Each structure stands twice: as C-alpha cells, then as structure tokens.
C-alpha cells in the first residue's frame, strides 16, 4: 500500500456542519483538545468539526472503482405486467401493464387496455408494485467515496466564491455509492458541491451510466450558496461579551459584502459582455454568475435558522434571484415570506436533530406537513452520500407525523422533478417520460419492502451492490 502522508484537510461547510446533523457515527474517537472545553454543546460542535476536519493519512488509490455491472446499453422494448402501477400523478392501477420502449414509458394502464408491442421482453410482476424511481434533492453522491480519506473527497473546493466549480465534471460514475443508492429505488440524485459561501453548481444525475455525461440529466442544475451565518450552528455558546459579538458581526458582514460584491460584479460583467462595444477579458467565475443574476439559473440557498433564512430571502429579493431554500429547519417561522414569493423548499435531512434545546422534539418531522398545509412546494433531501438510499425513510418519517402518505411519496418523486424543471422527463409514471421505474414487493417507504427490479433510462439495472456481493461472499464462507 502506498503510504504517502498527505496532510489534507477536508474543508468545512458540509451538510453535516450546517444541518446540525451529528457527525456519523458520533464515534467519540480521538478529538482535538478543544473537546475538553467543558460544555457539552461545545463537545458536540467539536465532534462535528473533528469529523469535518478529518485528516487522511493514507491514500487509497485503488478504492472507488466499482465492479458492479453498469447499464447494459440495450434499449429493449419491455413489458411489465400483472403488477399494481403507482404513477404518483394519478390513481394506482391494479393489474396494470406498462410498456417501455426506446428508454421511455410508451404506454400504461389496466391490463387489456394497453396496446402490446409486437416484440418485447415481457416480465410478469404479479403481486408487485411499479413506482417511479425516487429523486433525492440534495446529496454528495458521485463526489465522495470515503469521508475520512481526503483523496476520495471532491465535495469542497478551497476559497469562498467558487461559482465556477461544477459537480458535473467530478462525478465518479464507478463509485460504489451509486449501485448502493439505486438498488433501494433511488434512481436520481442532485449532487451538490459544499463549502465556502458560493459552493458551486450542482448536477441532477441518474444512478446509471458509463461516463458522467451519460449520467447527467441536468447540469448546471442550480448555484449553491451557503448563506453566511451570524453564528455557527447549533445555537450554543452565545457570546456574552460585546467584543466577541462584535467580531462575529464583523465577519458576518464581511461575508455578506463579499457575496454582494461578486453578484454586483456579475451584473456589471453581464452588461459589459451584452453591450458588445469592445472585447471583454473573460472571467469564468463571473461568467458562471451571469445566469444567476439574470434569474435564469436557480440559486439554492442553504439556511436553517430563521434569521439566516430571512437574510437569504432579503438578499435574493435584492438581486431578484430565483431562489430555492434548502435545509430550512426553521421553515415554519417564515411561511408568509416563502409563500408570497413562491419560493420552493428542499427540506432535510429529516432524520437529524433540531438545533435548539427548546425546539419541539418533532420539529424536523413536522416541517413537511407545515409546508404542505400552507401550499408551499417542497421536496425532501437526505444531505447524505453513502446513505442517500435512506431517502424513502426521511419521507416516511414525515408521514409518521401527519404528512399524507401519498404526499410523502410525491416529495421524493414528482415534487423535486417539478422544482427542478424536469417534470416532463422524470418523477412519475406518465407516457413519454424517461423509464426510471422500480418494481417492489410493497410500499417503498417501508423498511421491510424489497426493491426487486430497477430500470433506469428504460434499461434494467443489476440489483447487485458492494453490499449484496459482500453478503453473498461471506454467506458462502466454508
């Protein structure tokens, strides 16, 4: 094994840090000395920092190349018959027939009502259920293999203003995370860059393909801004002395000014390049921001606390940005502001901790219902990489606390497709859409349900993953 001692630090600003999600697992491994500072809250924060600053001592260059079969590349005509079709956008169809042709959904309906193709692979899925593939609205899939091994982490660029960083160019199509994600029925994810103030551009990808290009559904999908926080999450260690308070405000104001300055520069750049009076030296960062300031590319603002969300909305107003809110733990406190502006929300992670000690214990489980009751468009994100496969359980946990079950399913299928402007392609079983379809033996939001078949782009994908292969291997240990 190569033994370079590379002192690389994974920069801060990950989902884990901003969401209040504990470093996973809490581990309680060796932590820096600041752990001994005393307050439990400090300890938690330090755990998070320690996890984020994980220092890799070994390069593992051979990792991260999956041997799981990829999509076969044959767009066959396939008929699924006998199962219950749950299109999500319309009522379930018992004993339905679904026809896939050229990678698309050609037809579906009750048995007998659908015109059968002359030649097709016919699969009997009686007693089973056909759902659209699920969509995770925020992950790091494709950008990271092993959190603590810096050589496998491509989520977080250095610096604060990385508008030109693109997830799409760094997706590893042969990551082991991809089969692991898709075999639980998650066929699409948004892969999100992390860190800094402007983190970069996300990509909506599908969980099959031999090259990044084959996987990309839409890129850039959005610009990601970690809106500056007045205090780092969670709400602890409120500085008591005015000096410290002043320092915090100063650095906060500096960060917001930085963001404002670069967007103003982008506006000027757009005017200059649009004027065509003379040649303009190109600036790739400003160029990346032009569609943002022109309101063509959505901005996903990551903010959780009420104050930060309000500041982000105000900022979006100032620059007339097309804003989507992500994270959004305090979303119940800003309903009128979101509603009046039609700002959609990417809620999650749901299986996380509220940030204040006196927050209701179920705050994160009830937020989805609050949004639904108020008619605000939302989707659910896991903010995960290795466990984006748990998307259905984040949605299901909202249903345990009052969100109607069918809406929970929509929040991980058609809702994200609508928010991202791809509802004509994915998110439901409808004629003409890409055939991203899963076959299950039950409700996909339930833990005990097995995903029996996965189709992406109309091609049946192996249900093997690193995890099933390890299982098979050791089940057979002599």
């Amino acid at each position, binding site marked *: 094994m190569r033994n370079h001692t590379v002192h690389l630090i994974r920069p801060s600003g990950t989902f884990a840090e901003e969401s209040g*999600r*504990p470093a*996973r*697992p*809490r*581990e*309680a*491994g*060796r*932590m*820096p*000395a600041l*752990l*001994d500072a*005393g*307050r*439990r809250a400090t*300890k938690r924060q330090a755990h998070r920092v320690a996890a984020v*600053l*994980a*220092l890799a*001592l*070994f390069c593992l260059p051979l*990792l991260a190349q999956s041997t799981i079969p990829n999509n076969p590349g044959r767009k066959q005509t396939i008929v699924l018959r006998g199962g219950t079709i749950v299109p999500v956008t319309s009522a379930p169809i018992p004993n339905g027939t679904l026809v896939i042709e050229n990678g698309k959904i050609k037809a579906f309906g009750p048995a007998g009502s659908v015109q059968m193709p002359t030649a097709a692979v016919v699969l009997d899925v009686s007693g089973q259920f056909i759902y659209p593939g699920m969509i995770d609205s925020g992950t790091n899939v494709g950008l990271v293999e*092993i*959190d*603590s*091994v810096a050589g496998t982490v491509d989520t977080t660029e250095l610096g604060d203003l990385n508008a030109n960083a693109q997830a799409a160019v760094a997706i590893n199509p042969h990551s*082991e*995370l991809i089969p692991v994600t898709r075999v639980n029925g998650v066929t699409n994810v948004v892969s999100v860059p992390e860190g800094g103030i402007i983190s970069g551009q996300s990509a909506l990808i599908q969980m099959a393909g031999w090259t990044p290009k084959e996987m990309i559904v839409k890129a850039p999908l959005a610009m990601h801004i970690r809106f500056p926080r007045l205090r780092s999450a969670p709400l602890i260690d409120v500085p008591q002395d005015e000096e410290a308070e002043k320092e915090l405000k100063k650095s906060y104001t500096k960060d917001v000014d930085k963001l404002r300055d670069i967007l103003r520069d982008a506006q000027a750049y757009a005017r200059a390049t649009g004027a065509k009076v003379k040649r303009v030296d190109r600036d790739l960062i400003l160029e990346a921001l032009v569609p943002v300031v022109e309101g063509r590319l959505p901005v996903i603002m990551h903010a959780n606390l009420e104050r930060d969300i309000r500041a982000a909305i105000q900022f979006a107003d100032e620059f007339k940005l097309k804003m989507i809110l992500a994270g959004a733990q305090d979303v119940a406190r800003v309903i009128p502001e979101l509603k009046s502006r039609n700002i959609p929300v990417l809620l999650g992670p749901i*299986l996380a*901790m509220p940030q204040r*000690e*006196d927050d*209701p*214990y*179920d705050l994160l*489980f009830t937020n989805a219902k609050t949004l639904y009751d108020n008619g605000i468009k939302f989707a659910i994100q896991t903010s995960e990489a*290795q*466990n984006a*496969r*748990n998307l*259905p*359980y984040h949605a*299901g*946990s909202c*249903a*345990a606390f009052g969100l109607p079950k069918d809406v929970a399913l929509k929040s991980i299928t058609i809702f994200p497709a609508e928010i991202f402007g791809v509802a004509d392609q994915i998110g439901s079983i409808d004629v003409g859409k890409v055939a991203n379809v899963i076959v299950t033996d039950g409700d996909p*939001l*339930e*833990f*005990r*349900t097995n995903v029996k078949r996965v189709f992406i782009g109309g091609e049946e994908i192996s249900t093997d993953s*690193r*995890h099933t292969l*390890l*299982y098979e291997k*050791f*089940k057979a*240990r002599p």
Partner: protein
Amino acid sequence: MSKTYVIPSVARNLGGWGTRYEHGRTTRAPAPSLTLGMTLLLLALPAFAQERVILIKNATILTITNGRIENGSVLIRGSKIAAVGKDIAAPANAQVIDATGKFVSPGIVDTHSHTAVEGSVNEISLPNTGMVRIADVLTADDISAYRQLAGGTTTALVLHGSANSIGGQSQIVKWKWGHPIAEWPVQGAPRTIKFALGENPKSANFRPPEGTPRQYPATRMGVEEVIRQSFTDARDYMAAWDEYDAKKKRNETAIPPRRDLLMETMADILRGNIDVHSHCYRSDEILMLLNLGDELGFKVRELQHVLEGYKVAREIAAHGTGGGTFIDWWGFKAEAYDATPYNVALMVKNGVLTSVNSDSDELARHLNHDAAKSMKYGGLTEDEALRLNTINPATQLRLEKRIGSIEAGKDADLVIWTGHPLSVYSRVDTTMIEGEILFDRAKDLQQRDALKREKDERLKKEADEAKKDKGGKEKKDA
C-alpha cells in the same frame, strides 16, 4: 478473605454508588451500596405512598419473549410489570390507558451512547485510561435524553470514547428525565469498560493538538501491545497482592504493594467483575482481541460497531461474545468501507447475540428503524428484528432478567406506539420507565404554548433590563 465495608457517604449513596474499600483499595460497587438506613427507608416507602397502578388495555402487546398478544393488557404495579395477558380486569385504583389500535413494546435498549456526558467523552491523554469513569461526569440536563424517550429508548450504556486502546469505565443508565442524575444509573447493573481497536486508538483520522507529539500507538500492532502489556502488568499486580495477603495470613511482616487504580480496574476485568465492550471494525482486529482474551484470561462481552462481524461471525459466536452494530452506516472511514447492511442478518444466523445501537443522539431516537431494516437486509423475521432493540441488548448488558421484554416481574419500561414499531409510519405516544410516564406526546403538545409564552416573557424581561441598564449607563456617561 478480604474485608469489605462501606463508607457511608450520603451523596454517593443517594446515587446508589458506594465506595467499597477492599484491601484498602477503592473499587466502585454499584450494587450493594445503600446504607442500611437508606435501604429500610426505601423499603418502607411503599407502605406510606399510594402504590402506582396502571392498566394498559386493548393493545397489541409485543412481549418479545412470549410472542404477540392481540387485544392484550399490561398491568403495572409500582415500578414493575404485575401481569401481561388477554383479560386483565382493572383494579379499583388503577389508571387505565386505552390503547386500542396501538402497540406496546418494551423500552428500547441502546448499548452505545454518549448522551448526558458533561464535557469530553475521551480522557485522551494515555493509551490506557481504565481508571477514569463516565459515571463521574453524567449530567441530567441533556435534552437528548428526553428526545430519546420520545423515540422509545429507555436504557443505554453510556460509554467512554474510543481514543484509547483501553478507555474509561462506562455506565448503564435509564433516561430518567426530570429526575436527579443520581437516579439515572441502573442499580446493580454490571460494571463495564470501553476498549477500542483500529483507526481511532491509532489516531489515524485526527490531528494531535498543536505542539503535542503523536501518541502511541500508531498501528494495530501497537493497539494489541497496549492491551497485552496492560493485562500482563495486572497479573503481576495481582500476584504482588496475593503474596502480601499470604504473608499477612501467616502473620509475617508485610508491606502492602502500592495501590494503583488502573491496575485495580485491569485486575477486576480479569476477575470477571467488569464487562468489556470493545469498539472495533475490521475482522482481523476482532479476532486479535478474542484470541488475546483467550490467551490472557479475559472475556469480551460485546463488540461495538463490529461492521465486519459478518466475516468472522462464527468465531464471535464461539466466544459467546455479542455484537452491537449500525445497520447501514458505511464509508465514513476506511475501516467502514467493507460494511454491509447484511452484517446483522449474518451475525444473527451464525448465532451471535446481536443488537443495533446508536453512537448518536440522533439515531438513538429511532433505533426501531435500524431493527426494521434487518428484515429487508437478509430477511430476519419480525420477531428477530424486534429482539435487536430489546432482549438482545438487554442480555448484552446482563440485564435480561429485568428489562428487554414484557413479562410479569420485570421493570415496567414500556413504549406505546401508534402502530407496529417496525413501520416507518409509527410514532411513540407514551414512554414509561419503571411505571412512571416520562414521555407523553399529548402532554408534550399541550405544554408547547406555555413553554413558548414563558420563553418570550423571559426574553422580553431580559431585553427590558438590558435597555434599562444601558439607559442608566448613558445618563451616567452624559
């Protein structure tokens, strides 16, 4: 025989811990610690106070050890389950809980927690810190304990961290939210200690504090050596005391060896008075520890994390060692890259006493999710899955005669769920510990408005006072 007597320290005894002097050596004795007076007082209490009687009726009772009872009842008297069955008439003085349509399970037992610890969970300074005790730094104001009750978790093993090959002594507690911390430790529960193998004790992922050298060990070789050396030293230490005792018995002049709190701990492990719970990931290090135990004469009660347990499940089972694991966390570091969610099923099928545990304040409030996933990953039955949360972890903690199932005579640690606990759509309505309802969703909802009012009032008062102070100050300045 050694002389044992109890130092009557009131503060300690209230907590149920006595400081027992043997040979003039201090050991912690959780069980026989109450002074006679205190014991009599406690025994006399029920005679004065009205004994609590609760009948839960019309519920589906998941007894764990005796199957499922439809339309069943559980009768609680005082802190214990008095009867379980189909037709139990409500005693005249009973509080009756009608749980029609609901499920009752035993409280969830979590064998890996760091909740309710004041300050750092790691005494980070030495490779072996077996002399320190988590019991000394427990705190009753960690809101996470309440949130875990709201997820059905009632008992936990609060562990020292994994920074050292041999860490500190851990403490088994119940989440007795609202009670003084002295009442949280489970009386008579075994003493436990944390060991740790692999990346954490060899400091693979964390930078030492500025200006300090790296701490030994830096390899898995060194981890083994630390444990081997510690037990070797303990054998010498015990021999020295035996020699001293023998001399004294023969009325010879003898100088007692120097008392050493670390060696006392190591000796108590060898005597079987302290259970070892060891953090581990890779199969090689698991075998290393089990074999070392065989050689040096100590047993491992439970392997913690044990993500590669499936590779050596039969060796683990042959040692009578248990395994407490995460169902599906993987890829957060190199030694977690060969994890598979089928680990639980393979361990169970090879006869390993297996539980799912949290190592996280967040996961600890939905451990039922992890148990449920074992039905998907490897096909455990509902009954086997439920055991992962209840009787199995209770047995790992040697508390199977008191908790972990619904049987007459056991502690009334019960959870009432809105549906089957292995469903994503279920949530907890009520959690009780020893017959006392410590989480009640209806009450929690009721109290929210009052709590918010109280908080607002206090904040306003504080702001007013600040304004007044400032006003006064300005006047003075003028």
